[in-house]
C-alpha cells in the first residue's frame, strides 16, 4: 500500500526525473553504494539469525526488520559519528550504520560471555556511547526522555551534536513518549524523533492505536516541525531525517519525522500474523520492498552496474560468514560475572551464602570467614576460588 504515503513536494525532492549522474540528496556515488551495503548487511544478517534461531542457537526471541531496512539505514545515515542514536528492536540497520558489528549482534543473540552486554541483555539491546548508540530497554517510550537528556547535555555544553530516537507507532501511545517529546521541545534539545509507522504494534493495527490521521500531526500539539516520508525509500528517509538533523544542529530544536513502512514479519519469529488481512504482506513484499526498490533505482536512474552490487553482496556474505564463525566460538558467560557491576561502588555483589560453598553466615550465628571476600578488584583469583567452591 504505497499509497498510504501522502505525496509531498518536499519529500520527493531529489528523486524523480534526474539524470543518472546527478546524485540525489547530495550523496556521493560511494555513499549511494554504502546505503545499499547497510541495507543488504541488515537483511543478510537477519537471515543468518533466522538460521541460527532454527538451530536453537539464538536464546530467546528473534525480531526482524524485513521490509524496514530503508527506514533504519536511511535515517541513521543522516547522523555524524559524534551524534547519538537510540535504536529499537527493528533498528538493526541503524545500529550497523552507527558502527555496531555483525559479530556483536550474533554474540548478543547467542548470549555469549563476550557479547557487548556479557549475556545480560537480549538481542540488539546494547549500546556504546563512543560509537553513539544507546542500549534500549523493553518498556516502550522510555528512550524518548532519556534522549531528551542526552541532547540536553549537548546543548548545555555547546556541543554541536544531535540525537535521534526511534519510536514505533505503538509506542507513541505511552506516557513516556509524550513527556519526553514535550520536555525536549520546551528545552529546545537538538533531538530528532522518528516515528516508525509500520502499521502494527504487535497485533494491533494503527487505527486501534490512535485516531490521528497521521503521526506527523502529533508534532503540532508539541509546537515542533513535523515531516513525513516514505520509509521504504532509503533516500527519501535519509533526506527527511537530514533536514531534521540539520535543524537540530543549528539550534532549532526538536523535529518529529514520520516514516511510513510496513512490518512484513510478525512481532517476533513466533508470531504467525493471523491478524493481518490476506494479501497485505505479499503486496508489500512484491510492490514495496525497500531493497528491491533501491536496487532498481541504482541500476536504472542512477546508472550503477550489476557488478557494483554483486561485489557488495559478496562482501556482505563473507563478512557474515566470518562473523558467525567467530561468534559461535565465543564462550558462554561465567556465572559469577552475574554479580559484577550493578553499582559503580561496590563493584560486585557477594554470592549468597548458600552458593558460595561456605557454611552459612548464620551458622551458629557467626559471621563466616571469607564472607564478603568476592570483589571485582581481586576479580580473577576470587572468581576461580569461588567457582571451585561452587563445584
Amino acid at each position, binding site marked *: 500500500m504505497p499509497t498510504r504515503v501522502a505525496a509531498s513536494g518536499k519529500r520527493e525532492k531529489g528523486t524523480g526525473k534526474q539524470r543518472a549522474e546527478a546524485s540525489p540528496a547530495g550523496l556521493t556515488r560511494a555513499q549511494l553504494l554504502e546505503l545499499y551495503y547497510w541495507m543488504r548487511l541488515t537483511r543478510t544478517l537477519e537471515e543468518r539469525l533466522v538460521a541460527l534461531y532454527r538451530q536453537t542457537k539464538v536464546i530467546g526471541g528473534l525480531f526482524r526488520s524485513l521490509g524496514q531496512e530503508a527506514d533504519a539505514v536511511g535515517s541513521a545515515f543522516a547522523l555524524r559519528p559524534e551524534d547519538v542514536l537510540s535504536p529499537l528492536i527493528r533498528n538493526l540497520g541503524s545500529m550497523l550504520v552507527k558502527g555496531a558489528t555483525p559479530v556483536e549482534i550474533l554474540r548478543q543473540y547467542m548470549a555469549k560471555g563476550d557479547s557487548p552486554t556479557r549475556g545480560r541483555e537480549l538481542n540488539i539491546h546494547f549500546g556504546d556511547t563512543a560509537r553513539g548508540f544507546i542500549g534500549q530497554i523493553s518498556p516502550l517510550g522510555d528512550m524518548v526522555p532519556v534522549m531528551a537528556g542526552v541532547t540536553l547535555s549537548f546543548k548545555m555544553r555547546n556541543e554541536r551534536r544531535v540525537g535521534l530516537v526511534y519510536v514505533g507507532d505503538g509506542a507513541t*501511545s505511552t506516557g513516556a513518549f509524550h513527556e519526553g517529546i514535550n520536555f525536549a521541545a520546551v528545552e529546545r534539545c537538538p533531538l530528532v524523533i522518528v516515528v516508525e509507522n509500520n502499521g502494527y504494534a504487535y497485533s494491533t493495527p494503527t487505527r486501534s492505536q490512535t485516531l490521528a490521521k497521521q503521526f506527523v500531526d502529533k508534532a503540532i500539539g508539541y509546537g515542533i516541525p513535523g515531516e513525513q516520508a516514505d520509509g521504504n525509500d532509503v533516500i527519501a528517509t535519509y533526506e527527511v531525517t537530514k533536514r531534521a538533523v540539520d535543524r537540530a544542529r543549528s539550534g532549532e530544536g526538536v523535529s518529529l519525522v514520520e516514516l511510513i513502512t510496513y512490518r512484513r514479519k510478525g512481532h517476533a519469529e513466533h508470531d504467525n500474523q493471523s491478524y493481518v488481512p490476506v494479501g497485505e504482506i505479499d503486496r508489500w513484499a512484491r510492490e514495496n520492498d525497500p531493497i528491491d526498490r533501491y536496487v532498481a533505482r541504482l541500476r536504472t536512474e542512477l546508472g550503477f552496474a550489476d557488478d557494483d552490487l554483486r561485489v557488495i553482496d559478496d562482501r556482505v556474505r563473507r563478512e557474515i560468514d566470518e562473523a558467525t564463525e567467530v561468534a559461535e566460538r565465543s564462550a558462554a558467560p561465567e556465572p559469577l560475572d552475574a554479580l559484577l557491576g550493578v553499582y559503580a561502588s561496590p563493584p560486585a555483589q557477594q554470592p549468597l551464602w548458600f552458593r558460595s560453598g561456605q557454611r552459612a553466615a548464620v551458622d551458629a550465628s557467626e559471621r563466616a570467614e571469607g564472607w564478603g571476600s568476592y570483589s571485582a578488584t581481586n576479580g580473577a583469583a576470587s572468581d576461580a576460588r569461588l567457582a571451585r567452591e561452587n563445584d
Partner: protein
Amino acid sequence: MAEITYLEAIREALFEEMERDANVFCLGEDIAAYGGAFKVTEGLSKRFGEQRVIDTPISEVGIVGAAAGAAHMGMRPVVEMQFIDFVANAYDMLTNYVATARYRADLPCPMVVRGPSGGYVRGGPFHSQNPEAGFIHTPGLKVAYPATAEDAKGLLKSAIRDDDCVLFFEHKYLYRRIKGTMPAGDHVVPLGKARVAREGRDLSIITYAATLWKALEAADELERADGLSAEVVDLRTLSPLDDDAIQATTKKTNRVLIVHEDTRTGGIAGEITARINETCFAWLDAPVLRVTAHDVPLPYAPQLEDFVLPQTNDIVTAARVLAAY
C-alpha cells in the same frame, strides 16, 4: 475430568467469570484477535465480542486508570499486562489512585490486574520480574501468586469477585509446564489462605509460585538423602498474608526457611521473618533463613540466570544448615 495446564486454568476462570457476570470484561494489549502474548485470552473475544475483550493502545497508565474508572461504575475489569514488568509504568496509578480509592473517597475499585510474571525462561531483565514487593507494601491492594493450576483458576475467580483491587501474578514458567485437574462446579479458592503443600515435621519451607515446585523437589531430596521431613507451605496470596498458616507451621517445626524468586533485599521474606519474630520467637529453634535471588537485575544468558535465581540445590543446602542449627 481431564487435566489442564496452569494457563488453561486461567483461561477457564476468565471464561466462567465473564459468562457468570456481564460486568466482567477484559482489557489489555493484543488480547482480543491475537489472544494475548501468551494466548491466555484466546477465544475470549470470539465468545464475548470486542466490546468485552478490548484491545487497547500501549498505555499501562491509561488501561489501569480506565479499569479503575469502570470499576467505580460497577464494572469488574480484568486488565492484562502483556508482561507484568510493565506494571511499573502504572505504579502511580495503582498505588496512589487505585489503592486509596475506597479509603479516601469511598470509591469501590473491584478490578484485577493480571499478567505473566517470573523468570527461569531466559526472558532477561524486563520479561522476568517478580514485582510483588512493591505492591504488598501498599495498603489497599491485594496480591495473589498461584503455583498450581487449581489455584490459578480458583484464585482468579476469587480475585474477579473480590470487591478490592487484586494484582494477580501468573508465573509464565508454569503456564504450560504445570497441569491440574479442576474440581467440578464453581471452583473458587479464597484469597488470603495459604496451603500446606506437603506435611512435614523437621522444618518448614514457606514459598509461592514457581519456587513451590523447587521446594517440593528439595523436600523430596531432603527426605531421601537426609531423612529430614520438610513441611512446604504455599502462600498463594501475598497480601493479605495468612498469618495463621505461617504461625502454625512455625510452631510445628520450629525452623523456617523462606524461599522466593524475587531479589533478596526488600523481598517479602523480610516481612514474613518480622511477623514470625513478633509472634513465634519463643518457638524458634533457629534463625529464619532466606533463599532468594541475588540482588542484581535478572540477566538473560542461561548460565547467568540460573546462577542468580534460586535453585533446588540452594534450598537443600539452606535446609540442611537450618536443620543442623
